[in-house]
């Protein structure tokens, strides 16, 4: 009996993946149906697949501008986070300095702050400096949890690079910036890729802060979707199509980092 169970263990991932894919499949079929078909009866696949729902989204500015806004602040956030996290991670992995351990935990503690705590103060802060409803405001606000994570991941990857490389470069007469950009960064290329992936991911999936800090000009796609749910209520086909379109960028990004993703989730140190 137990032996049989162990033999069947390799089918577990298949069952698990089926469990993961079923709700996504359901979203996909709904996005290909008309509203009449969704509400009219129950069927496992669309009888007459239509791309009308996707067409609605891709031709209506109030829909597709949501995707553009989200993409802009996610990319901005990734660039800012990596630009400040790279030197900091280097400092943490190579040097001891006054208050280093406390600083590191303080940075991490921001990853632990519930976004609900920060929503209202962020709103007031960014309103008072005139950045409310701009992409840069959301990008800056998301650094709260992305910078600590990027520092943590990059520090893990950098600690895997032997210190002798730094010393050799110094003897060879490289200045620090040249050494860092020409020699060191290519060495931790996969680490930078993984950190960028995580910044992208957490900025892309976050809604509460992004929604609080925007109203019209920088409204993220996720917020556009919630408004549509409450206002027109029953446009299930378009809602499902919008959901499918939010999954696509993530799927593409995963494909590129698939060989490093496991190590990245372990924060670079296994």
């Amino acid at each position, binding site marked *: 009996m137990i032996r049989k169970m162990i033999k069947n263990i*390799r*089918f577990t*991932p298949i069952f*698990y*993946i089926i*469990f*993961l894919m*079923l*709700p*996504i499949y*359901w*979203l996909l079929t*709904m996005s290909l149906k008309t509203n009449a078909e969704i*509400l009219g009866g129950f069927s496992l696949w669309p009888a007459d697949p239509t791309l009308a729902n996707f067409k609605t989204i891709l031709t209506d500015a109030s829909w597709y501008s949501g995707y553009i806004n989200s993409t802009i602040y996610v990319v901005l956030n990734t660039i800012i986070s990596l630009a*400040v*996290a790279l*030197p*900091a991670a280097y*400092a*943490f*992995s190579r040097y*001891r*300095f*006054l208050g280093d351990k406390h600083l590191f935990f303080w940075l991490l*503690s*921001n*990853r*632990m*702050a*519930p*976004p*609900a*705590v920060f*929503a*209202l103060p962020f709103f007031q*802060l960014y309103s008072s400096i005139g950045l409310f409803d701009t992409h840069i405001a959301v990008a800056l606000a998301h*650094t*709260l949890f992305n*910078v600590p994570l990027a*520092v943590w991941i990059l520090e893990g990857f950098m600690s895997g690079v032997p*210190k002798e490389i730094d010393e050799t470069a110094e003897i060879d007469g490289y200045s620090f910036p040249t050494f860092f950009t020409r020699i060191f960064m290519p060495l931790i290329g996969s680490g930078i890729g993984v950190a960028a992936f995580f910044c992208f*991911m957490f900025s*892309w*999936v*976050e809604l509460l802060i992004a929604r*609080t800090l925007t109203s019209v000009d920088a409204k993220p796609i*996720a917020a556009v979707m919630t408004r549509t749910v409450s206002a027109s209520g029953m446009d299930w086909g378009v809602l499902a199509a919008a*959901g499918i379109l*939010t*999954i696509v960028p*993530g*799927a593409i990004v*995963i*494909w590129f980092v698939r060989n490093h*993703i*496991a190590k990245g*989730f*372990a*924060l670079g140190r*296994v």
Partner: protein
Amino acid sequence: MQRKHNQKAWFLVLPVFLLVAFSAIIPLMTVVNYSVQDSFGNNEFYWVGAEWFVEILNSERFHSALGRQLMFSGLVLAIEVPLGIFIALSMPKKGWGASICLVLMALPLLIPWNVVGTIWQIFAREDIGLLGHTLAALGVDYNYTQDAVAAWITVVVMDVWHWTSLVVLLCYAGLSSIPDAFYQAAKIDGASRWAVFRYIQLPKMKRVLMIAVLLRFMDSFMIYTEPFVLTGGGPGNATTFLSIDLVKMAIGQFDLGPAAAFSLVYFLIVLLVSWVFYTVVTVQDAEASK
């Protein structure tokens, strides 16, 4: 690795320090400010000391939200961690099978959180959802918008669906760092499957498991968007977790003082638990590198 003492390293850390100080300390001070003051509107504030903290810590509303939150985080950890380990152990180790597994499993992690809520909202509806419809056809009385138990089960299953892959990926990373020689030695010694797990695989996974538990605790304790979209905290208050209650209080009712005190207590709980975990992880690291 032996690290040199060098105070100039502060210059490298300075950009991060300034950026995070801007986006963390200023908002946090705003919260602290509100938590000790009261207002009758018109931007006039006066000092009330610890009154709001006393009120929050004694309020039935906070206690019940905290209770639900602890139960939710406990349930989610108790399901996701063992399940994640089990799936990671049974995954193919190399080749295209492993790549496909990793990509498909990571997919739920990259779906915006409100879309996760929407997906499950659609999936579990009785009239148009596959799950709701199937359960109704089987004669199961299931309605997550009316029945508190059904709502709880749906929220927990949704979280398992959303986040178990994180545990799987972490454990997979830990497992793939074990050299083949270990398994060959175990085979020669005639070790049982359980012994291999207990004495080779589990110790290697210990560190990543700590990270998994830490991340899952933090994120499940801060959960907001998914249950908000799925159940809106209902039926009644059955799935009103801490963040949902807090947003209701701060933005819905605009009770800034109590909401601020609530925020600080909430943050301190997460911080305390996470600090304990973090200390355990770093102490282990220090021992491992000796």
